[in-house]
């Protein structure tokens, strides 16, 4: 899954070919990047005037799914942490938005961003708890934490107990105006989260994270601050889930503890990342679009839809572990985080590691 030269220097050497050339991206990236920009421009400037309000609301859900997938991928694909409890932060984000917008009176856009910060603020202390568990037990441990969040939320009368809360900040706002605002805001937020994740992975921190994922012991012996890196990813990924939760509450005008804290959010994240392609920036975008399309198309099937989803995820893990994007990658890379090394000559072979 990792780029073969993930630890190569980040700038190509300027000297003539006394060393192998290292490049990132290439013409494919520019073309792909241009296409991506075009899609965003279309979504921003054309789509809102061409489709119904219902479709716009549905697209808001797609943008939330991209954020969920991207941030879960940050945890699992780059941080090596499989969390089954990210619904904890979806829920925190949803409740925080409504409290901040209604009780505090913050403007909705500020309330969403603040909800992300609330998610981060809760994720930081929580990380000290769940980081005591490794691997698969980390996965279930995060789920327990999410259950605790849900049960505690239901105990608090101010949060509506078992029935949840509805958002009243938009009361009196024109419906068209509201949906359009939520749509543009969600689009901007999605673009920001994807770009932010991309920049994080390109940074020094990102390289360290890739090293941690690939071999934690070796990374720590090379001076990578393993725990700090993982904690940063956990907090950032959870903030992302909280942003998505806030968007969902903003779009659906309310939360209930049963649905906003549902493990199905994590199931969706896992499907999106696994099917799209784990450990890549593009994969979760592809996966989210696919999930969203399937959700629309298979809605008449009801519960069967989730049966199919689970089965597809299993099949992809076993048969195409790099996901749909992995099948296409190598040819295209819209967000180049890996480097390509072009060796000087055939004689520069790698040292043999046999005969130990």
């Amino acid at each position: 899954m990792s780029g073969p030269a993930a630890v190569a220097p980040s700038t190509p050497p300027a000297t003539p070919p006394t060393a192998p050339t290292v490049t990132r991206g290439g013409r494919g990236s520019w073309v792909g990047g241009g296409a991506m920009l075009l899609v965003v421009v279309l979504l921003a400037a054309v789509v809102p005037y061409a489709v119904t309000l219902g479709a716009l609301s549905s697209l808001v859900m797609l943008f939330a799914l991209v954020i969920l997938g991207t941030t879960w991928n940050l945890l699992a694909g780059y941080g090596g942490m499989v969390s089954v409890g990210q619904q904890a932060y979806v829920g925190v984000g949803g409740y925080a938005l409504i409290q901040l917008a209604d009780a505090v009176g913050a403007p909705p856009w500020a309330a969403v961003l603040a909800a992300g910060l609330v998610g981060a603020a809760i994720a930081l202390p929580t990380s000290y708890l769940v980081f005591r568990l490794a691997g698969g037990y980390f996965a279930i441990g995060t789920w327990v934490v999410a259950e605790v969040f849900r049960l505690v939320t239901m105990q608090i009368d101010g949060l509506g107990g078992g029935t949840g809360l509805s958002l009243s900040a938009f009361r009196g706002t024109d419906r068209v105006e509201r949906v359009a605002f939520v749509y543009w805001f969600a689009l901007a937020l999605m673009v920001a989260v994807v770009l932010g994740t991309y920049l994080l992975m390109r940074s020094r921190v990102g390289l360290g994270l890739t090293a941690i994922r690939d071999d934690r012991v070796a990374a720590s012996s090379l001076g990578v601050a393993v725990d700090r890196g993982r904690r940063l990813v956990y907090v950032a990924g959870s903030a992302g889930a909280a942003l998505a939760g806030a968007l969902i509450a903003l779009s659906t005008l309310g939360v209930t503890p049963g649905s906003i804290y549902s493990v199905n959010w994590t199931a969706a994240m896992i499907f999106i990342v696994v099917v799209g392609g784990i450990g890549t920036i593009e994969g979760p975008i592809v996966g989210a679009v696919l999930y969203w399309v399937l959700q629309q198309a298979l809605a008449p099937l009801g519960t069967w839809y989730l049966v199919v989803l689970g089965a597809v995820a299993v099949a992809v893990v076993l048969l195409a572990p790099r996901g749909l994007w992995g099948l296409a990658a190598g040819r295209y890379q819209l967000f180049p985080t890996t480097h390509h090394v072009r060796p000087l000559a055939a004689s520069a072979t790698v040292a043999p590691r046999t005969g130990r």
Partner: protein
Amino acid sequence: MSVLEVTGLEVRYGDLTAVDGVALSLAEGETLAVLGANGAGKSTLLAALAGTHLPTSGTVLLDGEPVTRLPAHRRVRRGIVLVPEGRRIFGSLTVEENLLMGRFPKRAGPWHLRAVYDMFPLVAEMKDRRGSVLSGGQQQAVAIGRALLANPRVLLLDEVSLGLAPTVVTQLYDAVRRITAEGTTVLVVEQDLDQALRVADRVQCLLGGRTVLEAQAAGLDRDTVADAYFGITRGSRTDPTEA
């Protein structure tokens, strides 16, 4: 007929050819030492014989039957038993449980628990200790005992001396001599030339994955082996880097 007959064996790791057309033959009761420097392909050869890394081409015959593509666990049941590099003792099992793992393939033969304890009295004293607390030499004795309990048709020993003190190595090779004296067919891979020459009937030297010297051990000139070891050409001997 030979117990073990290997022809044209080639083993690769990706693009790298680690064993490049090696042939060897082991007669009943014979002890062959495969020598060579680091990276010569010795361990890879053993891995291909034991089935832990399958060869890309060539054949391995055990008593005339092909076992080339058989996975490791099924080869053991046929009698090719490996004492791996690094010993690979089961840390959470006791010493006796480690030894009893040799009985798993249920092969009949002369070796039983008593005989192994007689050969390694120290191991008998530690039989209730966990594998993880043993010293390197103790681990190596347990690893050899464990393999013997499988009653091998061919015993493969990988770098018995690795990382051990010279006196411990000498003791272990004393045991190996007794094992070969019992008539067990043995293939030793070793970097320690003196120890290898003590137990071997014949010597085969590898360099860059190919055989560069085959000779009877008796009366073998140490310098001749050393030269082959490092690929030094002298007089009429063929240059191993050619061809």
